[in-house]
């Protein structure tokens, strides 16, 4: 289990969100989530310009084993997607919290949406409990 970076916030459904210095929010799935899914073979990215709503599905990751929706941790407009994942979805397996980021949004309601998210300790506790 990789260390969970301290600057991330999490959804219970295992997405992470990081507020960048320029105010955008980078989104991915946790290392725990990639471990549950196993080898990823396909990522369906959102489209730049899409409006996403916190809690709604906006992308899909598929492993050999299963397909899983990715939910938006915050509302806003998609400003960037990690198109390298189209050719190398396994990047998420290798570096879920870094190179395996999935998309970036310009948030529209960050303060309120953030209140719904878990800090790293609360997330660590959540996955700890899941394993037992």
């Amino acid at each position, binding site marked *: 289990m990789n260390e969970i970076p301290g600057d991330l916030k999490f959804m219970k459904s295992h997405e992470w969100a990081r507020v960048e210095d320029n105010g955008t929010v980078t989104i991915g799935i946790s290392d725990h989530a990639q*471990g549950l899914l196993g080898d990823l073979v396909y990522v369906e990215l959102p489209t730049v310009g899409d409006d996403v709503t916190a809690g709604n599905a906006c992308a899909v990751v*598929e492993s*050999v084993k299963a*397909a899983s929706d990715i939910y938006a941790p915050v509302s806003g407009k998609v400003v960037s997607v990690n198109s390298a994942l189209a050719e190398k979805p396994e990047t998420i397996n290798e570096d879920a919290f870094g190179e395996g980021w999935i998309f970036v949004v310009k948030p529209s309601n960050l303060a309120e949406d953030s209140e719904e998210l878990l800090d790293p300790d609360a997330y660590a506790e959540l996955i700890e409990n899941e394993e037992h």
Partner: protein
Amino acid sequence: MTQQTVLNAAHRALGAKMVDFGGWDMPLNYGSQIDEHHAVRRDAGMFDVSHMTVVDLRGARTRDFLRHLFANSVDKLKVPGKALYSCMLNEQGGVIDDLIVYFLAEDFFRVVVNAATHDKDLAWIEKQAKAFAVTVTERADLAMIAVQGPNARAKVQSLLSSATREKAAKIGKFVACEGDGLFIARTGYTGEDGYEIIVPEAQAVALWDKLLAAGVKPAGLGARDTLRLEAGMNLYGQDMDETITPWEAGLAWTVVLDAGRDFIGRAALEEHKAAGTGRAMVGLVMDDKGVLRHGQRVVTAQGDGEILSGTFSPTLGRAIAFARVPAGTADRAEVDIRGKRVPVRVVKYPFVRDGKPIEAA
């Protein structure tokens, strides 16, 4: 209550991700199931298949019994050691299970059946065996390790005594031999050459460790599934069950309608064949990105079908599947994936044989 094979601790020591499979706590992967898949296609991998059920059948009339019990004909088994793949049918011609039977002597055959069907298989075999005075003995004292891949046989042979090595090196495909306390069969479920080794539980961990040291990569159920699907092999419960006859499961090649043999399910099968089988099992390949999955709807010009086994093929780098579709389906169809219709090619399978993609796939 979850059962464990004698190799359970060995899997955990290797960091396996464990899952429940038919009531057994089994390794899904040891890290990356795709790496394990490639190891079997390119070199050698091993699977703990000790959850499968080994049943010994003894009695003077064992061959007669199996001529009655199986849809394939054990009359093909003329030389001791020879193996045969067959379905065991109910009276309606539905598949109770698929299995491998080994001919060891006129009064001694060995059968290996699936783990998930253990209870009903044993009950059925025991019930049918009474009329033939055949003794049915489950061999729970035996473990089983499948070693598969282009280098699998050489690596196994390097661990055997010279007498056993000589026997193991000589046997042809679908033949078994015995030696060093092992039952060594040149069979498998991956489309690669290799052995399935039945080993007394007391020797199983040592054999596993020796295979590891010889460079055989442990592989889990995840890789086993992608390998067998690429190789065009059915999975019981997913590709066929008691409501499906071999005609609609791509298993017509395993049914022998030989003169004068009254096997269970034969009358129903002949009726089904005469009436015309409405559906056929076909292979699908998807060139678009995504993964085909069990239960997805297949749309054809002749009507709807459904995906039985579907997965991402690591060898082809795209999704493949078995589907049951209306008979006469042409070479194109569509699959409904989360509300989107995605085009697929309808192909003959296997998709991969001896490490190489088959042309059509």
